[in-house]
């Protein structure tokens, strides 16, 4: 029971208080670049989730065998291996989704978030905890991407998940990649605002 509670905590932490995109401001390249539709966000989110969870678990299993001096190369090697695996699998089984994501699947290897997570968490904690933590972070990334994708798809092409909702295209600009910057910036401001408001109300109470 205690384990379950902490695993839920780990997950929510990944999605809300330590959301990789909005709070930690890491792995922003895909957030800006390909979050043009919810589907893209979902697919890349799944890829990142896969890499994050498997890498966390792998490092956690081998944490006692890894020599401290070669930590970083080992993390890089693990991440690169899992990225290659998901890259090959996606290219083989989901070629259309893969084509839309372009280079970004291969670029997962350079995401600072995954290396950081391994460094801060997986090499110290148990396999179970690492799994939930990885899951949380991956979900946080996926949720973040999907939210951005939701706004951009809706405002840019009037569709959600390919279904024509509005029937017209409000502002084509939102699909153009440069709008990604704006949307992410505004969402970060929004998260900030929520935090400040929350702190203020808490501050007043206590």
């Amino acid at each position, binding site marked *: 029971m205690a384990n379950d509670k902490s695993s839920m905590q780990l997950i929510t932490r990944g999605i809300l208080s330590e959301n990789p995109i909005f709070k930690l*401001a*890491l*792995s*922003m*390249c*895909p957030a*800006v*670049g390909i979050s043009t539709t919810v589907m893209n966000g979902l697919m890349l989110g799944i890829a990142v989730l896969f890499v994050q969870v498997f890498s966390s678990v792998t490092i956690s299993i081998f944490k006692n065998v890894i020599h401290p001096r070669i930590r*970083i*190369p080992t993390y*890089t*090697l693990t991440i*690169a*291996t899992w*990225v*290659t695996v998901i*890259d*090959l699998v996606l290219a083989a089984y989901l070629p259309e989704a893969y084509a839309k994501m372009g*280079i970004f699947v*291969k*670029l997962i*290897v*350079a*995401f*600072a978030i995954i*290396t950081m997570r391994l460094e801060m968490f997986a090499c110290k904690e148990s396999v179970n905890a690492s799994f939930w933590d990885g899951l949380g972070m991956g979900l946080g990334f996926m949720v973040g991407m999907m939210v951005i994708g939701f706004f951009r798809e809706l405002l840019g092409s009037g569709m959600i998940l390919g279904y024509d909702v509005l029937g017209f295209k409000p502002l084509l600009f939102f699909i*153009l*990649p*440069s*709008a*990604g*910057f*704006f949307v*992410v*910036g*505004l969402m*970060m*401001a*929004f998260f*900030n*605002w929520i935090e*400040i408001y929350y702190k203020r109300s808490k501050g007043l109470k206590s």
Partner: protein
Amino acid sequence: MTLGKIQQTILVALVLCLAPFLVHAEDLIAEKSFKSNTEILVKFSGPVDRAIAEDVKNYTVFEEPDPDIRLTLKSAILAENGKSVSLVFAEPLNTAVAHVVTIRGLAGIESTTFTVSKSYLGYLFGILISALLINNFVFTKYLGLCVFFGTSKKKDTAKGMGVVFTLVIVVSALMSWFFYNFILIPYDLNFLQIVVFIGLVSLTVQAVDTVLRKVNPILFNSFGVYLVLVIANCVIIAVPLILANSNYNAAETFMLALGAGGGFLLALYLMSAVSERLQLANIPQTFKGLPIAFIVAGQFAMAFLGFSGLQLF
């Protein structure tokens, strides 16, 4: 290495490359080029027979990859001094492809064959400008953003990061090209791309770190810190991936890497210039820090959108 010195070295290299082209003109054909999209201009080293040069039937022109499709020549107009002929075609030419021209009976030679194509140097330069402006890695391709936002607060950090980055990317791109063409492809190990590339990047960073420490400790103190950040940069992996995808040769790889690094430096510098001014501005609490940086970057991205479709060569 200041920006000025870098520019000088590039100019010298270009001149050296051009020199052999200038010395070459010994045989009949002095110069050949696409004058417009329906015309090829051929300059001879001496005056030629008017009757032969203006007879359309003596010419055979085709696009290099399609030797069986002969292009229709509308007319061949010889200039007054007899030293250059303008070949006018019925249909617009696809100037992106090399065209092979054969002239029969000119100056007594049974057939003279030569190829007309857009200058290769122009093509290389085109790759450079493309990676620098048109497909700027930060503003048009949205790569390397984490490091970008981290180091673009002040002009000095921006310059430092940009220069170190360009250096690492050129060296690691050339090494990746070598590995890709001589080890990965011949042995059919293409799926090891990602691991090999990132391994090479780490190796380069380590090497530059060690070398810089010994050779120029002062430089190391100001720039060394950024070396570690280079590894977490998406652009540094993107460049080898792009060159693998497009099958570039060594010269093209060099141009791509130079353009990528230069573009990054440019982006950082522009951003830091704005950032320094933002620090004096009155920004609302919620927007302070990253949000406003993102919005500024978005405006830069919109500006760089203006470069898209630019075709210099």
